[in-house]
């Protein structure tokens, strides 16, 4: 099928190409105006919205952390009441996990970058993608509106029963928490399906499994983990809500229910969740280390294996959050085994990154600084992970500030450091302008030092016996000085984020123009202009190696023959990405927005009455039917040109 009809494909476009670009532009243009905003379906648009929204929630949760650090800076302080403090830490944890970390590391990154990296024009199921974003947004807004009305969740980000159950969690606070989970899980699951289908079926020809960029591998592994882990929290939060609103008895010991069932289901999701957050981080580090060591990553195979193995093993760790519940030790020890053995693939990744650096040419730009910071912080978190993996040691450190230190090292080290690296790395692609290098390094050093001042003392204060989730402590416990040091560290973290925001807003207006590939990197998103046009690529690319741009043959073929009067795309085979079919993406429409509004009404309604879901299902069904109802003109156009597959 490769013909020799040659076209020019370098900096300057030919007349013919310019006409093609204009046609694509017309077909792919997102609707404008007020209502246009609600109709947009392109993955770069939705991806940017995910990123901005998630970052907004990150800032909110960061401010809540500031409130907590203020309260804890003095023993028996009354700056926040106990009630407010309990809401603060619950909102902080829930926001960071459900409204920042997963939507940012998985949804935003995956939605924006994966289609570009695999060389296609949109994400699979773009309307579902828009719907998932609105649900996420509405869920987050609902959660914070409830907080503003003094109905903020206050039972911890895990909402254990019976504390959050009908008997000990009066009011509507735990219900809002449970429905936040419902909102975010629907959006997470939708993006997981989109990501898997995009990567399995929409890759550029030639991008066989062994050539998929590691970042994309990471997102696929995460997508599978989301699919198999989120059902755990779907069930636990639904059972919680039903216990509270419909009088079911799942967690009531007096009626044959069981409080540990909740924990099993919650952590079936909760532990993979940690890796859902960390794996994209690791994949970002692989990408940055490759680009800034100027060589193909060392041990591609091992890195992919590590991501895949971590994805599987993450499902064998959930009981290590329940070591103190009195489960028999032999049973718990299987989870000690898994928790420690999972360090082996992670160690393999670290060694491969160091080997890449040791055999490459290291360019110390800001993204690489964040990667180096990641090594210092994340490895420390991994090491303290060995303590919590051991049943006996965990019995001492579990639910103390040692664990708080551990998971902030793991999650900030494993997700926020790579994320800030990713922001500096991909900002030019998304906006077309470079971030300021000096301000970038200032952010890094403020954040790195501030982070360690804030969180390192938590190890010590935890060993000295300070439990988590206490709104205050007594002056004679010997915890005061360490807590004050931690609170001072927060100030540096706060400044670091301020500098980042200044840098972003300055660069958006007056940053240096980036050009298509400012880092001279090898993956496909750098093959198109910055920011990418709505159709992503003028010519769909083909791939000849792991770093598509570095390995491209001088006469690397391009894809032609897709009709440019529709949002066409190419379907390729899962294993070897040979072309196997064509299809069309649906265009912009208001229906996903309306469906998300209807769904939100049903979800929020069910907080107040069990009939919320039942009656709310009717508008949901109507909007869904409207969404899926075929449009006449495109149907006729497609029917006229149909080619059926030969069996």
């Amino acid at each position, binding site marked *: 099928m490769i013909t020799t009809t040659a076209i020019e494909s370098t900096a300057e476009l030919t007349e013919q190409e310019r006409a093609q670009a204009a046609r694509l532009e017309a077909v792919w243009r997102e609707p404008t105006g007020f209502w246009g905003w609600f109709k947009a379906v392109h993955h770069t648009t939705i991806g940017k919205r995910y990123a901005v929204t998630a970052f907004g929630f990150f800032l909110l949760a960061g401010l809540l952390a500031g409130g907590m650090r203020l309260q804890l800076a003095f023993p028996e302080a009354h700056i926040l009441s106990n009630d407010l403090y309990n809401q603060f830490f619950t909102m902080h944890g829930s926001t960071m996990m459900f409204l920042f970390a997963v939507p940012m590391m998985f949804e935003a990154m995956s939605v924006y970058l994966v289609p570009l990296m695999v060389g296609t024009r949109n994400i699979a199921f773009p309307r579902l993608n828009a719907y998932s974003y609105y649900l996420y947004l509405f869920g987050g807004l609902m959660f914070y509106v409830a907080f503003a009305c003094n109905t903020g969740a206050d039972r911890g980000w895990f909402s254990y029963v019976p504390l959050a159950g009908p008997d000990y969690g009066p009011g509507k606070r735990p219900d809002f928490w449970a429905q936040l989970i419902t909102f975010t899980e629907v959006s997470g699951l939708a993006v997981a399906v989109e990501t898997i289908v995009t990567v399995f079926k929409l890759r550029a020809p030639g991008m066989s499994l062994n050539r998929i960029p590691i970042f994309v591998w990471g997102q696929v592994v995460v997508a599978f983990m989301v699919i198999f882990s989120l059902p755990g929290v779907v069930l636990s939060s639904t059972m919680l809500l039903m216990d509270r609103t419909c009088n079911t008895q799942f967690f009531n010991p007096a009626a044959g229910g069981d409080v540990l069932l909740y924990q099993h289901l919650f952590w079936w999701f909760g532990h993979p969740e940690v890796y859902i957050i960390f794996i994209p981080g690791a994949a970002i580090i692989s990408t940055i280390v490759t680009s800034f060591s100027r060589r193909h990553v060392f041990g591609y195979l091992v890195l992919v294996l590590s991501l895949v193995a971590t994805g599987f093993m993450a*499902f064998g760790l959930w009981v290590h959050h329940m070591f103190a519940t009195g489960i*028999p030790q*032999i049973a718990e020890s*299987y989870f*000690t085994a898994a928790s420690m053995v999972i360090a082996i693939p992670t160690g393999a990744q670290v060694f491969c990154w160091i080997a890449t650096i040791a055999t490459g040419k290291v360019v110390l730009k800001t993204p690489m600084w964040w990667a180096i910071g990641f090594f210092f912080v994340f490895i420390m978190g991994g090491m303290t992970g060995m303590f919590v993996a051991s049943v006996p040691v965990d019995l001492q450190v579990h639910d103390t500030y040692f664990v708080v230190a551990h998971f902030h090292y793991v999650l900030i080290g494993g997700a926020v450091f790579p994320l800030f690296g990713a922001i500096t790395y991909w900002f030019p692609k998304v906006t077309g302008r470079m971030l300021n290098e000096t301000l970038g390094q200032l952010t890094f050093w403020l954040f790195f030092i501030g982070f360690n001042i804030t969180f390192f003392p938590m190890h010590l204060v935890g060993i000295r016996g300070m439990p988590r989730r206490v709104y205050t402590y007594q002056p004679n416990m010997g915890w005061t000085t360490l807590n004050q040091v931690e609170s001072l560290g927060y100030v540096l973290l706060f400044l670091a984020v301020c500098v980042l925001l200044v840098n972003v807003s300055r660069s958006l207006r007056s940053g240096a123009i980036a050009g298509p590939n400012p880092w001279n990197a090898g993956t496909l998103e750098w093959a198109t202009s910055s920011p990418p046009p709505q159709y992503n690529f003028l010519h769909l690319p083909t791939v000849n190696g792991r770093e598509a741009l570095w390995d491209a043959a001088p006469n690397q073929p391009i894809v032609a023959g897709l009709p440019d009067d529709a949002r066409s795309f190419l379907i390729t085979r899962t294993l070897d990405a*040979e072309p196997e079919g064509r299809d069309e993406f649906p265009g912009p429409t208001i229906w996903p927005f309306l469906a998300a509004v209807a769904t939100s009404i049903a979800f929020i309604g069910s907080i107040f009455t069990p009939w919320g879901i039942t009656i709310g299902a009717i508008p949901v069904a109507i909007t869904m039917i409207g969404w899926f109802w075929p449009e006449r003109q495109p149907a006729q156009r497609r029917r006229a040109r149909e080619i059926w597959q030969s069996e």
Partner: protein
Amino acid sequence: MRDPLQSTQPSPAEKRTDVMLWVALLLSPLAMGINTIVGFTVAHWTTDTARKGACYLVSAIDFALCIFAFAISASYSRISRGTEDAEAIDGRRAFMAKVSMLLSVLAALLVIAGTIAVITLHPTD
């Protein structure tokens, strides 16, 4: 070799190879899953009856699965020896075979770790 950019169908023999590679790849995670989840469930029973036999049986089954996965992937890896794992199609098969070999080693380590726990600990601990 088939051209990866052509839309030709893989031959039935190639399809069989790919299916076997998938099987080899997924056997080790299956072993890991059985080790942790079934092992965890059975261990409760071990604690009640003070007999460790069932736990050892789980380990033995898992270990057999790992060896089986390793054997399949090793045999395919031998066929594709000399192929760079960044090449198209045949390279992809070599890649899958190697990943699945390493995965079975990792799964075996997990099974061994679980078995050490059963040996060291007493049911009443």
